[in-house]
C-alpha cells in the first residue's frame, strides 16, 4: 500500500499544491485535508504548508491554530504523528505550542524571497533522516515574518537537547536567533522549517532537488513505524 501523507489547506494557504506535488514526487500519496476536517483519516504523516492562513489576520498562524483540524492534529502530534510545518505551517505549529519559540518580523522589516543555504544539524527526525549530519542544502526562503525567537532558557534547552534541526549557513537572512531555520519538538516527530523544501524538488521549477529529502525521509520513517507496529 502506498504511504499516505496529508496536506492541510487552510483558507489562504498557498503552497498546498506544491507540498502535495513533493509528496507524490517522493513516492507517497498526498491526501488533501481541509481546515474544517475533524478526522485525520488514519494518515501516517501530515504537512502544514506555507501561505497566509486566514489572511495572517491578528498574527501569523494565530487563527489557524484554532481550526477544527488542529483539534485532531494537536493530540495526534503529541502521540507521535510525524508533522512538518513549512513557513506559515511553522508559525502555526509554534502558535499551537507543538514547537517552542515564535516567528517574528524579519530584521530589516522587508519580505525576503531568495535562495538560502541551510545546514541540517539533526538527522534523527522522521523528516531529515535521508540527509547526512551537517549537510548543506539550498532552499527558497520567502517570508516576511521568519525571524525565529525564543527566550534564553528555551534556547539553551534547544541547543543542549539538539532540537535545532537546521541553521542558515550562508549568512543570517532575517535575524533569526542563532541562525535557526528550523526546530523540532522534544520527541522529534514535529518539525518546523522556515525555508521551503517543497519548492526544491525539481531543477526546472526550483533551485534544485535538495528539498526532496524531507519527503523521502518521512516515507522511510512511516515504513519503519509500520513494520515496528506489525511486529
Amino acid at each position, binding site marked *: 500500500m502506498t504511504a499516505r501523507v496529508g496536506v492541510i489547506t487552510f483558507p489562504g494557504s*498557498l503552497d498546498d499544491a506544491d507540498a502535495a506535488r513533493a509528496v507524490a514526487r517522493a513516492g507517497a500519496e498526498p491526501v488533501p485535508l481541509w481546515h474544517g476536517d475533524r478526522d485525520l483519516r488514519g494518515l501516517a504523516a501530515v504537512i502544514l504548508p506555507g501561505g*497566509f492562513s486566514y*489572511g495572517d489576520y491578528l498574527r501569523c498562524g494565530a487563527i489557524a491554530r484554532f481550526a477544527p483540524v488542529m483539534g485532531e492534529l494537536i493530540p495526534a502530534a503529541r502521540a507521535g504523528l510525524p508533522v512538518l510545518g513549512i513557513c506559515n505551517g511553522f508559525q502555526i505549529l509554534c502558535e499551537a505550542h507543538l514547537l517552542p519559540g515564535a516567528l517574528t518580523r524579519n530584521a530589516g522589516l522587508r519580505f525576503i524571497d531568495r535562495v538560502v543555504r541551510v545546514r541540517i544539524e539533526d538527522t534523527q527526525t522522521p523528516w531529515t533522516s535521508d540527509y547526512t549530519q551537517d549537510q548543506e542544502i539550498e532552499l527558497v526562503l520567502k517570508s516576511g515574518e521568519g525571524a525565529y525567537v525564543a527566550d534564553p532558557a528555551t534556547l539553551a534547552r534547544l541547543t543542549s537537547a539538539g532540537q535545532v534541526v537546521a541553521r542558515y549557513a550562508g549568512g543570517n537572512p532575517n535575524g533569526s536567533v542563532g541562525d535557526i531555520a528550523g526546530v523540532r519538538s522534544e520527541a522529534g516527530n514535529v518539525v518546523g522549517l522556515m525555508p521551503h523544501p517543497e519548492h526544491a524538488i525539481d531543477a526546472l521549477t526550483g533551485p534544485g532537488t535538495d528539498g526532496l529529502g524531507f519527503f523521502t525521509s518521512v516515507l522511510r520513517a512511516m515504513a519503519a513505524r509500520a513494520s515496528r507496529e506489525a511486529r
Partner: protein
Amino acid sequence: MSGAADTVSRAGATPGQPQPYAELGLTSAEYERIGELLGRRPTDAELAIYSVMWSEHCSYKSSKIHLRRFADSAPPSPALLAGIGQNAGVVDIGQGYAVTFKVESHNHPSYVEPFQGAATGVGGIVRDILAMGARPVAVMDSLRFGPAEAPDTHRVLPGVVAGISFYGNCLGLPNIGGELAFDPCYSGNPLVNALCVGVMRHQDLKLAAARGTGNQVILFGSRTGPDGIGGASVLASATFGGPGGAGDGVANTDSAKRPSVQVGDPFMEKLLIECCLDLYAAGLVTGIQDLGAAGVACATTELAAAGTGGMAVRLDEVPLRVFALFTRAEARGVEPGTPVRLTQEELYPDAKGVPLTAFKFERIEDGERAR
C-alpha cells in the same frame, strides 16, 4: 436624503425634480440623452447606474475610437480563442492548453492612494483572468513616474511598488517581471499598469454572457462597502481637474469622507480564486463576470447585454458591509425597492478593478435586459 424610494412611477409623475447628475460626473447633454432614451427622467438608481456606465472608466467614451483600431488592425488568428470585448485575451499554446493575459491601468487611484490604488489594480486584473476560467499564475507590472528626484515621486513610487508586491504575494502570485521609467511628463499623472497571466485547458474557457432563461445569477465575493463608491465616475472621469480630481481622494457625495479608492482584501480574493475554480470544475457556471469599478450595476447589465435575455435584479438584496450605504446619492444603484429599466443600447461592456460581494439569486428572463 429621501426616505421613500424613487420608483419608476414616481419618476414619471415628477419630471422636473432636480437630480444631482453633475455631481455624479454626467454632462447636461448626457443627462438629457438619458431622458430621451427612457422617455422620462431616470430614477435615482437609474441615474447612478448611468453615471458609472457612461464614465470614462467604464465606457472609454473618449478613447474607444482609438482602442477600436486594435481590433481592426489585428490579423485574425485561429490561436486567439477569445479577444477584444472579453475580460482578457486567450491564446492557444497547444496540447489542449491556453494562456490568458491582460494588462490594465490603475493610474489615477494609484496617484491618489499609492498603496491601495496599486494593490486593487492587481486585484482587478487577477479577477479578469479568473473570470476567463483560468488559474492566475503570475503578475507583472509596467510603471511610469515623474522625475526620480521629485518629492511627489517619492510619495507615490514606494506605495505603488509595495501595493503591487503585497497583493500578488498574498495571492501566491509571483511578480515575474516589470519595467520602470521616469520622465517629467508623468509628473502628477503616473502610469501604473499591472498584468496577470493565467493557464487553462481549452474546455475551461468561460465568457461574460448570461444564457439560459430561468438560470440563476449568483453574486459572490466580498461584501459591498462604501469605500470606492464614486471612484469610477469621479476619480477616472474625463476631467481630472474637476471635483474629486487629482489629490482629492474622497468621494465628494459622502459626508463621512470615505475613500473613493477602494481598500483591497487579498485574503478574500484568494478564497474567491479557489471558490471559482471549484465551481468551474463542478460544471456549474455558464457565464461569469467580475465586478469592476461600477460593481453590480456594470456586471449584471453586461452579462445580460452579452447574453440572450434580461435580468431581474433586486438591488436592495445586495449584501452590504455598512448600513449607511443606503443613502441617496451614495447608493449608486442600490436604492432599496427601486426597479431599474435599461434598454439594450445603453448597456456598455467592460468591467474594471474593484470587488463586491455576497449571495443573491436572480432570474434571467426574456425581454427586458435589466429590471
